[in-house]
C-alpha cells in the first residue's frame, strides 16, 4: 500500500472505535493459528517480526516441501514459557482495521483455563471460543461457555475450526452447531437478553471465513469472523445506553490555590477557581447531564439528593457525558463526599447492604475457608469482609452445583460474605461494573478471587443462601 492511499484511508476511516475480545480454547484447537491468522491477514504483523517467524518456520521444517510460515509462532511467548512448554497467562495483542481498533486478550487453554478465561472475559466485549471440527463440543467447550455465561460476556462467538480437515462438510458443521445450541440452552446463554451467540465455520490455517468469507463453505451465508468483530456493539456502547447512571468517586479535585501553572498561563481565572471542588471518576454505566438529579451513596448515610451543576474534563465544560468517560462532576450542594462514594441517577440504587451473596471464581492457590477474613474491593472502596459460608461449587461440565465448604484454585462457587460496611451492591447480571468485586488477601495483598454479586440481599429471607 502506498503512503498516499493509506493517508486517504486514514482520513475517511477516522475515528475508529475500540473493541476488546478474548479467545478461549486449547493449543490443539488451533487457537494460536487463528490469532496469528487475524494478526497476519489484518496486516498487524510488521516485516521484521514476519521475517523472524519465517526463519523459525523454515528451521523447524514447517509445511514440509510446501514451506510457508507457522502462524502460531506469531503468538510465541516468553522464554520462560518456551523453556517449560506452557503458556503462562493472558497476552494482549493489538490490530486495527478501517473501522475498529482491536485489543485481543489471548487466553491460554490447558493450564488454569478458568483463571485465564475469567481474566480475559472480564474486560471483553466478545469472546471467541474455538472448537476443533473433528472433535466437536468437548467438556472443555462446556466449561468455557459456562464461564462466559457467568461473566456475562455480551457476545459469544464459537469458531468451528479446521473445517478444511472435515472436507468443508456442512453436516459436520450443522451437528456441532446444534450441540453448541443445546449447551447454550442448558446454560441460558444467548436467550436471556444479555448475551448473543454466533457459530462460524473457519479454517485458521487457510484463512477461510476468518477475514474474508470463504467460497469453500457455500452453505454458510453468515459473516466472516472479522466482520462479526467489526460490527458487534461494544459493551461500552450498551452500558452507555442504560438509564442507571453510576459514577464511583475516585478522588476529590480541590486545588485550593495549587492550580496548574500551564492552565494559569493559558488564562485560567485564578479567582474563579479558588474554591473549585469536583468529584473525579469514570462513568461505569449510563449517562449524566448538567441539571440531572443524583443520589450520593456513602456508608453510614441515607442517600443524599443533589443536582449536577457542571461536568468538567480538562478545561472543557461538557453538557453531557456517558460511560466510559473519565470526567469530574460538580454538585449543587456542599456534601461531604470522599473516595469510595458513588454518585448515581436519583432513585435508581437499592439500599446498601453489608450482606453479600456472590459467585466467586477462585484464582489463588490458597483455598477459601469458611470463617476467613478477606478484603473486598468494590468500585473505588475496599472493605474488610468475613466469609460466612461457602454454599456450593459449580460443576462446569454438567452445570450442576455440589455442596462444599471450600473453594480451590480455578473453582467457581457461591458464598455469603459479611462486609464491615454496607455497599451499594448490584446484581452482576445487569451491572457488569457495580456488580463486580475483587477478593483480596489482607496478608500479602494478592487477588484471591473475582466476585460477582448474585442477587440483592433483600431478595433472600433465609439466613443460608439457596442457590
Amino acid at each position, binding site marked *: 500500500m502506498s503512503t498516499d492511499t493509506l493517508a486517504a484511508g*486514514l482520513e475517511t476511516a477516522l475515528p475508529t472505535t475500540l473493541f476488546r475480545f478474548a479467545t478461549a480454547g486449547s493449543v490443539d484447537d488451533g487457537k494460536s493459528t487463528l490469532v496469528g491468522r487475524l494478526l497476519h491477514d489484518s496486516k498487524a504483523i510488521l516485516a521484521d517480526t514476519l521475517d523472524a517467524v519465517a526463519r523459525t518456520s523454515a528451521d523447524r521444517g514447517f509445511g514440509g516441501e510446501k514451506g510457508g510460515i507457522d502462524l502460531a509462532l506469531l503468538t510465541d511467548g516468553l522464554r*520462560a514459557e518456551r523453556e517449560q512448554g506452557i503458556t503462562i497467562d493472558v497476552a494482549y495483542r493489538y490490530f486495527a482495521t478501517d473501522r475498529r481498533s482491536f485489543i485481543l486478550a489471548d487466553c491460554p487453554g490447558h493450564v488454569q483455563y478458568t483463571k485465564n478465561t475469567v481474566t480475559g472475559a472480564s474486560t471483553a466485549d466478545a469472546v471467541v471460543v474455538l472448537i476443533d471440527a473433528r472433535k466437536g463440543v468437548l467438556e472443555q467447550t462446556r466449561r468455557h461457555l459456562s464461564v462466559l455465561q457467568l461473566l456475562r460476556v455480551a457476545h459469544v462467538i464459537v469458531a468451528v475450526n479446521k473445517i478444511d480437515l472435515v472436507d468443508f462438510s456442512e453436516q459436520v458443521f450443522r451437528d456441532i452447531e446444534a450441540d453448541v445450541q443445546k449447551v447454550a440452552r442448558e446454560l441460558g446463554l444467548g436467550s436471556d437478553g444479555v448475551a448473543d451467540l454466533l457459530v462460524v465455520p473457519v479454517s485458521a490455517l487457510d484463512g477461510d471465513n476468518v477475514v474474508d468469507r470463504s467460497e469453500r463453505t457455500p452453505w454458510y451465508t453468515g459473516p466472516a469472523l472479522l466482520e462479526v468483530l467489526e460490527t458487534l456493539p461494544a459493551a461500552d456502547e450498551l452500558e452507555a445506553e442504560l438509564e442507571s447512571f453510576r459514577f464511583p468517586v475516585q478522588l476529590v479535585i480541590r486545588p485550593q490555590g495549587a492550580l*496548574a501553572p500551564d492552565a494559569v498561563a493559558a488564562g485560567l481565572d485564578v479567582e474563579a477557581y479558588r474554591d473549585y471542588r469536583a468529584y473525579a471518576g469514570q462513568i461505569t454505566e449510563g449517562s449524566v447531564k448538567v441539571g440531572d438529579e443524583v443520589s450520593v451513596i456513602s456508608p453510614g448515610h441515607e442517600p443524599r439528593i443533589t443536582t449536577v451543576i457542571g461536568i468538567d474534563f480538562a478545561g472543557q465544560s461538557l453538557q453531557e457525558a456517558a460511560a466510559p468517560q473519565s470526567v469530574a462532576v460538580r454538585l449543587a450542594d456542599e456534601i461531604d463526599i470522599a473516595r469510595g462514594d458513588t454518585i448515581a441517577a436519583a432513585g435508581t440504587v437499592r439500599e446498601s447492604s453489608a450482606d453479600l451473596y456472590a459467585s466467586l471464581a477462585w484464582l489463588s492457590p490458597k483455598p477459601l475457608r469458611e470463617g476467613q477474613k478477606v478484603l473486598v474491593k468494590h468500585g473505588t472502596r475496599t472493605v474488610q469482609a468475613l466469609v460466612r459460608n461457602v454454599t456450593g461449587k459449580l460443576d462446569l461440565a454438567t452445570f450442576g452445583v455440589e455442596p462444599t465448604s471450600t473453594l480451590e484454585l480455578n473453582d467457581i462457587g457461591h458464598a455469603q460474605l459479611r462486609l464491615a460496611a454496607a455497599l451499594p451492591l448490584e446484581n452482576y447480571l445487569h451491572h457488569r461494573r457495580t456488580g463486580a468485586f475483587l477478593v483480596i488477601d489482607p496478608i500479602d495483598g494478592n487477588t484471591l478471587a473475582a466476585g460477582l454479586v448474585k442477587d440483592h440481599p433483600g431478595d433472600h429471607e433465609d439466613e443460608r443462601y439457596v442457590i
Partner: protein
Amino acid sequence: MSTYTTEEPTVEVAAAVDAPSVERLSSLDTLESEAIHIIREVVAEFEKPALLFSGGKDSVVMLHLATKAFWPGKVPFPVLHVDTGHNFPEVIDFRDRTVERLGLKLVVGSVQEFIDRGELAERADGTRNPLQTVPLLDAIQRNKFDAVFGGGRRDEDKARAKERILSLRDEFGQWDPRNQRPELWNLYNGRHTVGQHVRAFPISNWTELDIWRYIERENIELPGLYYAHEREVFARDGMWRAVGEVSQPLPHEDVITKLVRYRTVGDMSCTGAVESDARTVADVVVEVAASTLTERGATRADDRISEAAMEDRKKDGYF
C-alpha cells in the same frame, strides 16, 4: 444436585446486532479515559507516586494525561528521570522546559554518578540503557516511591504484552511473570507490602500509532528530533547512528548528512535514526501507519541483543 439455570427457551443463533444509536467514543477517547482512570486510581491509593519522564514521546503523553486527570489542579507527583549521561542535549532541554512549565519537581537518577563511584561498569558495547536499572531502583528506594508510572506499551514487546497494568515489584524491583496478579474488570489491586512497589502502565493498551494520533489531536509538543531534520550520521547494525560525543564512527564507517528522524528517543549510544521526510506530526502519523518495521526492531540496538532482551531486563527491575 440442582442446576443453576431456570429457563429452557430456544436459542436463536443471532446475526450481528445493529449498533445502538448512542454516538460511540473514538478509540482514542476510550484509551484516554482508561488511562486517566488508572492514573487517578494510583494517586488515590498510593502514598508517594512518581512518573518516569525521559522526554520520550510515551512519557510526554503520560504527563499530558496526568495534567488532564487533575485539571485545574497541578499534577500531584514528581517526575523521575534516569539519566544515562548519553542523552540527546535537545531532549534534556525539553525535559527541563516541561518541568518548569508544569511546576513539577524533578528527581534525577544518574548512571554517570554510579559509574564514577565504581558501582556500575561501562559495558563493552558502550550501551547504557541496560545500566539504568540500578539508578532507577536506588531513586525509588531513596525517595520512598511506592508507585512509579511508566509509559510502557504492550505492543512494544512480547514481555510487555504479558505485563499487568499495575505490576508488582519486589524489593529488588524484579518482575515475576509466573506470579502476576490476575487483573479483572477495571478494578486494580495496588496492595503491596513494605519494600515492594508497583509499576503502573496506564497506556498499556495504546499502540505506536495511537500515540502519534493522540499527539496530533492534542497538539502535544515533542523534542524536535522526532521530526525529520538533517543530521550527520553513519551506518551501524543496519541503523543510522548520530555522530556525537558518545557515538563516534569507526574508521571504516562513513559519515554522511541525511534527512532523518527518531522513532524512539533513548540513550544516544544505542538509539538509531530512520530515514524520513516526515517534518510534521501529520506526516509522522502517515509514516507510522505505513511502516513495515516495529518501533524497537527499527531503532533499538539494545533489544537486538537477544530475542528475550526485554524479558531479561524486566525481570531485573527495568522499566
